[in-house]
């Protein structure tokens, strides 16, 4: 049971325009908690600061203000050991599966490395066995065959599965998934999302599902947070947020999302009128 907590986290960037430098607040006073076994969706328009939050959690950006706590203790990326433990606990799946795998390394390399890093005692055979296991777990079978492949020999969905397997390798309890399907083809999306959902259930993972797709956010998470211009404007259980949006912004978002049912209704109305 791990909890990850963001306390009043703010991130500012320096923007240069012409001769002036201005401060731009990408994330402002974000507060939320992630627990193992729960999926929290973070939705919002492009540029609302979702990825920035993910990066701060992973230590790829440093918050300007505020703290990130893991099990109540502040995360420390400086101490080698503390960082190591953190890395084992929190993992990330990146947005673009085409960019998140190194074209020069085999699938096995991608999964084995984090494993070796976090289980230095494991023998090579054990590592290999675990890799195959993991590949099986993400439904890349036969694992022996996939392990030897290069990323260029995989489809987008398969790549994303490798990326997920890699994230699972250190046996984390928190998984940050930053738009894990937006680069994928429509028909593969659900497969990957379902996989994530299954793993969350089976491995008791805490998942932060970042997306701008309201529909999948609703169906794949327990809770939804809506971000707008760096601020979390609304949060609550998934169905509540979608079906009874409180904030104006959430309403706009929902209104903008394509919804065939709505058209259907409209057509029906029009026909009737005719």
């Amino acid at each position: 049971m791990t909890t990850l907590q963001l306390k009043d986290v703010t991130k500012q960037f320096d923007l240069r325009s012409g001769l002036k430098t201005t401060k731009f607040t990408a994330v402002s006073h974000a507060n939320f908690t992630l627990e193992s076994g729960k999926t929290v969706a973070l939705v919002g328009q492009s540029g609302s600061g979702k990825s920035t939050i993910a990066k701060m959690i992973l230590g790829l950006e440093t918050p300007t203000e505020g703290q990130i706590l893991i099990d109540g203790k502040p995360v420390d990326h400086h101490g080698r050991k503390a960082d190591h433990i953190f890395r084992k606990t929190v993992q990330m799946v990146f947005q673009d599966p085409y960019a998140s795998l190194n074209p020069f390394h085999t699938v096995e390399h991608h999964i084995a490395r984090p494993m070796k890093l976090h289980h230095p005692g494991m023998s090579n055979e054990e590592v290999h066995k675990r890799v195959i296991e993991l590949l099986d777990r993400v439904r890349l079978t036969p694992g022996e065959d996939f392990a030897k492949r290069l990323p260029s020999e995989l489809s987008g969905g398969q790549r994303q599965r490798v990326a997920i397997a890699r994230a699972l390798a250190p046996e984390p309890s928190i998984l940050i998934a930053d738009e894990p399907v937006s680069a994928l083809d429509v028909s593969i999306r659900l497969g990957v999302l379902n996989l994530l959902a299954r793993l969350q259930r089976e491995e008791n993972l805490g998942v932060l599902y970042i997306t701008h797709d309201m529909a999948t956010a609703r169906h794949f998470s327990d809770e939804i947070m809506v971000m707008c211009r760096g601020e979390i404007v609304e949060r609550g259980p998934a169905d509540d947020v979608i079906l009874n949006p409180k904030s104006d912004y959430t309403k706009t978002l929902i209104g903008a999302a394509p919804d065939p049912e709505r058209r259907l209704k409209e057509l029906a109305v029009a026909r009737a009128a005719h």
Partner: protein
Amino acid sequence: MTETTEIKTNVIPPVYETDPVLEIDDFCVEYRAEKTVQAVKHVNLKLGRGEVLGLAGESGCGKSTLAYGVNRLLKPPAVITSGRVVFNSREGYPIDVRALEGDDLRMFRWEKISMVFQGAMNSLNPVKKIKDQLGDVFTTHRPEMSKKERLDKCGELLERVGVDRNRLNAYPHELSGGMRQRVMIAMAMALDPQVMIMDEPTTALDVVVQREILREITRLKDEFGFAVIFITHDLPLLLEISDRIAVMRKGEIIELNDAMSLYTNPQQEYTAKLLSSFPSLTGDRGSFIRTGSEDLAEGASPFATKE
């Protein structure tokens, strides 16, 4: 959105059988790369006047290839191996598009069929002012226009899509993504074409902007009466705006039907799968998908097919 106008025009089904503006017969395109890829296979399609035809299908199924092929924009190694494209001009004569060469072809393009391409950022030349890019449509097709007329016309076009006239002097990077897309639409309308092909015009935009643009397109179409081929892989989106929808898979059109029938009663398993890939926002199917098998969708991936 002004819902009333939108509904009104689409009530009467368009007459694509009797008075098509564009007829595509047995259209085949191959990429003769290291390995020959049949990107478009025996496509037959008729586009009615003023109709919005949605073209759906996932990445790589040949949607763009078909669109470019119709406008003769394909580059080597793409080869049109067979097929006929006939454009029935409003003025009352047919044009065999594949027989056009040189100046004839250039005169045909944009005048009769204009296009809006996927990424607006990339469709506009980053180092030329908006007015020059709008203007050179006129310098090419309306050489007799004076400079002032041209400028006026460009300004008018911009205003038509809701962009301020003084943006004529801007460079593309000075406009937001949505504005750039609108500029492209304005450009596509410049010569009052009869067909407009839109290749994923909203994919790169976020939903709010996307919504605005769609609204704009519908409005303009109604006002000027051009036919639209709207390409995207976002089926829900197509369902909202198109009269008929063609579903493509592996280069073939596997299903073609009017939007409502397609949604409510898909004939092909693949169409059904595609539809189910988009969980409904307000509908009730979320829980089903979440517990469903993840292999279902993956199996539908073109990448997963065995060689």
